[in-house]
């Protein structure tokens, strides 16, 4: 039934948006009458439990869940803002720019820490660190890199073992990859040295964390850099094959953010969903399969470098800046 509905929906939407959807799904409440349209870059498999726990308590609603890459989420929403009610994305800079440019609706009376929201419009609801993920088998006999410096050393000393077997985001495609890269570059020069090494070892570039984790599990690649640890932890099927490492020197932590479209007619329903997301009710220990790490104020966040929601994020979105950065990155990572 759901499949048929999805097909109908897909057929209806297809001509309108020549978009490269990764997934489109309709989640129905028990007696859903109103449908919230969500555009997101989070894999359906990971996000589905969150939606389902919402529909359990709000059976009068349906949720149409559209998945695209973060760059596509941004551009698609920007070009047709009234086609969606909520935007969920891990690319904080793009989300912030949407708010800055007036695409989001301010929602009053939401109790949320100031560092996790912007203009009462953009709300962070997860805390997800950028990690190094390795294939355990591939590192047999090799030291497990605990930091970027150790990773550089292990790559430099074992080029034959890693040539063509390193993975990272293609920051030209992935908004999140670009965000992690630019934030890395801000913090430390180590990033460029690591990129140089990775470039010299013919690093494979990926659009998404999911793909990288698949390849890691298969053993095609031995190590990947700046992967979302949360995605890796979510994959119980590959848990015994891979290991998630948080670099000890520093690790950028990203907030998955949500905003409500300025043009939506369903503000109150959208606000219900927004409240559900930031309440972290969806992450009850008994809810299996959910592995997005919720943003809670109880945990100690002082050791993390959480990417700040401030106008600085827009600097790397500047066309010239972006071109400069990507030129530099390309010349480092693509050396053939």
């Amino acid at each position, binding site marked *: 039934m759901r499949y048929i509905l999805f097909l109908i929906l897909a057929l209806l939407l297809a001509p309108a948006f020549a978009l490269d959807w990764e997934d489109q799904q309709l989640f129905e409440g028990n007696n859903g009458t109103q449908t919230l349209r969500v555009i997101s870059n989070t894999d359906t498999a990971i996000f589905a439990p969150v939606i389902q726990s919402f529909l359990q308590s709000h059976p009068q609603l349906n949720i149409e869940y559209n998945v695209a890459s973060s760059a596509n989420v941004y551009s698609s929403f920007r070009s047709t803002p009234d086609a969606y009610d909520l935007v969920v994305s891990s690319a904080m800079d793009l989300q912030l720019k949407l708010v800055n440019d007036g695409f989001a609706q301010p929602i009053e009376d939401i109790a949320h820490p100031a560092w996790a929201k912007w203009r009462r419009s953009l709300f962070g609801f997860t805390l997800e660190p950028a990690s190094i993920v390795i294939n355990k088998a591939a590192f047999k006999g090799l030291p497990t890199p605990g930091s970027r410096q150790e990773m550089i050393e292990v790559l430099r000393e074992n080029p034959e073992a890693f040539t063509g077997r390193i993975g990272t985001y293609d920051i030209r495609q992935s908004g999140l990859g670009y965000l992690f890269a630019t934030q890395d570059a801000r913090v430390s020069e180590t990033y460029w040295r690591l990129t140089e090494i990775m470039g010299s070892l013919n690093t494979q570039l990926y659009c998404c964390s999911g793909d990288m984790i698949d390849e890691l599990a298969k053993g095609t690649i031995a190590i990947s850099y700046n992967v979302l640890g949360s995605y890796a932890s979510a994959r119980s099927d590959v848990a015994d094959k891979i290991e998630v490492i948080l670099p000890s020197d520093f690790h950028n932590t990203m907030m998955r953010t949500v905003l409500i479209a300025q043009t939506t007619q369903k503000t109150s329903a959208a606000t219900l969903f927004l409240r559900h997301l930031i309440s972290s009710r969806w992450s009850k220990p008994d809810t299996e399969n959910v592995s997005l790490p919720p943003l809670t104020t109880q945990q100690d966040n002082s050791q993390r470098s959480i990417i700040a929601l401030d106008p*600085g994020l827009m600097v790397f979105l500047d066309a010239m800046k972006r071109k400069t950065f990507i030129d530099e990155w390309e010349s480092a990572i693509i050396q053939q």
Partner: protein
Amino acid sequence: MMSKAAFTSGSLRYRLAVTLIGVVAVLTLLFYFVLRAYAAQIALQSQDNILNASVTAILDAAIIRDGVVKIDIPYAAFSMLNTETDDRVFYAIYQNSSLLSGYADLPFPQRESRMSNTYKSGVYLGVAIRQVTASRVLVGGDIRTRITATVAQTQDSLSGILQRIARNAALYGVGFFSLAVVLAIWATSSTIDPLKRLAESVARRGPQDLSPIVKPVPSEMTPLVSSLNSLMTRLDKSFSQSEEFIAEAAHRVRTPLATVRSHAEVTLQRVDKEENRQALRSMIRAIDESSRAAGQLLDHAMITFRANQLEYQAIDLVELARECVQRLTPMGDMRDVELRLETDTTVLVSGDAILIQNAVRNLMDNALKYSPVESVIIVKVRSEPSPHISIIDQGAGFPSDEMHALVARFTRGRNASGTIGSGLGLTIAQDVALAHDGTLNIGNTTEGGACVTFSF
């Protein structure tokens, strides 16, 4: 029952206080608006400074590499624009007049001077923004080009700050105003006080005290006080003159009357012819009647004069009644009429002793006049229900048909003309009672005697 209130045209204190408070209110409002405007200017200036720093940072990052302008915007250029209220940030960078990057539709201000930065308030995407624009000339190789950067920011934080400042300024204003009102009231009363003290000292004086005011007063009040003093001097003179005149006139008239009366009495003892005796008796009666009438008229005049300025003092009515009884006992003896006093131990009232004594004496006089020979007049002084003196005789009482007329005359007030004898005596007592906010009740006892009650 004191002297009539003067006509008033507003209160000096009120006028002074209102003027002072009005001035304070105007000053407070002025203070509030000036403070707010000044605060707004400072807040705007601090926003301008940050925007300026941001623009400068962007321009500083501009370089020409391989003949192409590159600008590596520093992260801090936008990060520094972070505010508490998460203000939105817009920017645009132009090379000469072509857009390099940023918001193409951001209004680009017409620059008056190429040297100094331009500050401008405007509207973008429907919201108020503050915009700073600056430019810089880049020279590289044979290229010489002008880079212009403009950075704009919304003003949520600014208006938040302004609101806070306005609220605080209003609070300070209210505080300042309240303090100033208290001070104004204090200043007013300290200014008015000498005037009040003067009025009080004049009011406190007894009616006979017409001496000049010698206490020092503020210079503004000296004309008032000196004319008051001159008025009092004249009044004093005229009062003592008229008092002297009345006393002298009475003396002049009464002494010859007394002589005639005494002669008549002596003669009466010596003549035997009945018609001569009859003439002498009529003469004596006529003298007595006219002297009694003159006395009562003078008493009445004096009471009318005194009633306007009572000299209050504590009086024991029992003592007063006892004195009157003592004074009139000889008159009673002549006709074997006993004046019997029935009193509480003391009955204290506040009033003018001379007037009350006069009233009581007049009432007893009446009772004596109408009492039969060998009868009793009872004088009761009681404090309950209210202090009163009752005088009860055993005469024929008030004729019931005249009683209404008597009462009516009292309610009409001082109609003394044409009433001599008991009527005027009652009128005097009535006037005194009224002057003391008391009442005079007349009636007859069940045995038929008259009963007059003077109560406070």
